């Protein structure tokens, strides 16, 4: 019987996908199953009312590797009769998505911002033309893979009766890629995707020490500081984990305050889901004002400290 299979190597994302899978399963009249490659995920899914949790040996399962996980998931997909596979659009999820899609002859859409079932069938939205547009797309293949952006929905809450665990005998070829070491990018890493308030800074900032004025404002607003890509990759003023934009994180804060940012599309795609957007820029014609609820034309070196003071 065709079914929906969910998997993410990230625990939180896996439970978001389970919620989405259940919602779609109800509408599409499809059973929902989860693939759990690791003991902790099995229990997590079972506690959240996932009727079937597929798991494979060896136990403990090796840490994420695209080629091994693609093999495992293609075998689990075959065993579960998966017609729709939901993955997380993390970097690991994306490299898995392509490899798995090719194995299964499946169509695939990554970086999906939404996935809904309606009159047109199962339709995903994702950025196109580098984020200048948003395309609504569907797949025409028998097996369909959608990699969904993390934080697309809340994780399923625990408390429902547990389902059945189905072990699948996996036949896995070892990966030729040898892992040597892994180091955290940023020990003080913050959760930009989950933050309620983001203070974003761009090249309007003159020097690294001046980040202080953004940090002070962020702390007055109860938020965290994020930045455009050049500030992290070219200038290295902030770690890469703070990048908002097409190749960084996508924020969904209640409030975003963007200072010294012109609003190029590569940045804009990461912040346009903010509920309220405030922009501070010297140039009254800056594009960022077109996407702002409130714009303040002026020098961020004056506006930010004064705003911080006004909030205290």
């Amino acid at each position, binding site marked *: 019987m065709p079914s929906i299979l969910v998997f993410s190597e990230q625990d939180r994302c896996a439970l978001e996908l389970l919620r989405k899978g259940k919602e779609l399963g109800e509408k599409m009249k499809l059973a929902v199953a989860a693939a759990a490659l690791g003991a902790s995920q099995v229990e997590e899914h079972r506690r959240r009312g996932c009727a079937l949790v597929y798991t494979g040996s060896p136990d403990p399962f090796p840490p994420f590797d695209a080629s091994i996980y693609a093999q495992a998931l293609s075998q689990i997909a075959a065993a579960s009769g998966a017609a729709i596979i939901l993955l997380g659009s993390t970097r690991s999820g994306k490299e898995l998505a*392509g490899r798995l899609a090719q194995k299964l002859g499946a169509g695939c859409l990554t970086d999906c911002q939404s996935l809904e079932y309606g009159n047109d069938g199962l339709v995903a939205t994702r950025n196109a033309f580098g984020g200048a547009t948003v395309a609504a797309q569907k797949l025409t293949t028998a097996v369909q893979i959608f990699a969904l952006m993390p934080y697309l929905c809340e994780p399923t809450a625990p408390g429902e009766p547990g389902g059945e665990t189905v072990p699948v005998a996996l036949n896995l070829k070892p990966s*030729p890629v040898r892992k040597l070491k892994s180091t955290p990018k940023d020990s003080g890493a913050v959760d930009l995707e989950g933050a309620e308030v983001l203070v974003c800074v761009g090249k309007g900032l003159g020097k690294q020490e001046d980040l202080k004025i953004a940090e002070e404002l962020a702390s007055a607003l109860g938020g965290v500081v994020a930045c455009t890509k050049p500030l992290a990759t070219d200038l290295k003023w902030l770690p890469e984990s703070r990048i908002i934009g097409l190749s960084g994180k996508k924020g969904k804060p209640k409030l975003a305050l963007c200072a010294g940012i012109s609003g190029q599309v590569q940045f804009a795609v990461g912040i346009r889901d903010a509920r309220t957007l405030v922009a501070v820029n010297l140039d009254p014609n800056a594009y960022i004002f077109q996407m702002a609820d409130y*714009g303040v034309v002026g020098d961020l070196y004056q506006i930010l400290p004064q705003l911080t003071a006004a909030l205290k």
Partner: protein
Amino acid sequence: MNIFVCMKQTYDLQQVRIRKETRQPVLENVPLTLGNIDKNALEEAIRIKEKSGGKITVLSAGPESLEDTVKEALAMGADEAVLITALELDAIESALSAVLLAKAAAQAGPYDLIFLGEGSTDSYSGQVGPRLAELLDLPQITFAKSLSLEGRTLRAVRSLEDSLEEVEVDLPALVTMVSEINEPRIPTVTQILKAGRKPKKVLRPEELGVPLRDFAPQVQTLSNLAPVQNRRGILFKEGAKEIPALVKALEEEGLLRR
């Protein structure tokens, strides 16, 4: 060392405007170029060649206009190009791209390294690399931010969301990279002039045994429009003087903690 670099032709997105009334992108007269991150992949190949020698072949599938667009890559330092062209390959899907590139790579091989950007500039789907690795049964290293080669062993630092992962693989291997890996060079006028004379092989999909009529599209696009911006658009033009008004507005929206 034979390095294949897969590149995709896209519109120069800096020049794509949105028609306000219809929210549609305006693509007429927008120049074509090669993907931004694809150029990082090519730059990395050139650096390896400069150090260890070898040959760089650019592979690309797309419409006929590719023959002209690919000169950019040849000018940068690729030695030759293998192009798979057909009118229908405009706005090519990842799955078809991977199949055509795999066939072309097998025919143009042997190869030691296949390089790609982590995603194309336009669609940024990130599928072609992993799909191609699967088709060619190659190990894949994705999101590389630095590479070093010692003999037949490639070492890479991968940039994941919150960690850097160091990995090692024996060649042949496929690598996708992030734009932080390098700064692509700008070709000189002499290089641009010479690019036209570098070898270019143009193949039709049928010549690779992939008749396009046999390939059913996997992705159907229902709409593709600029997102609706429901923003208030209130502009305080007087700078710092208007901070009280901004604070009041944010307060009324319940966005301030007090």
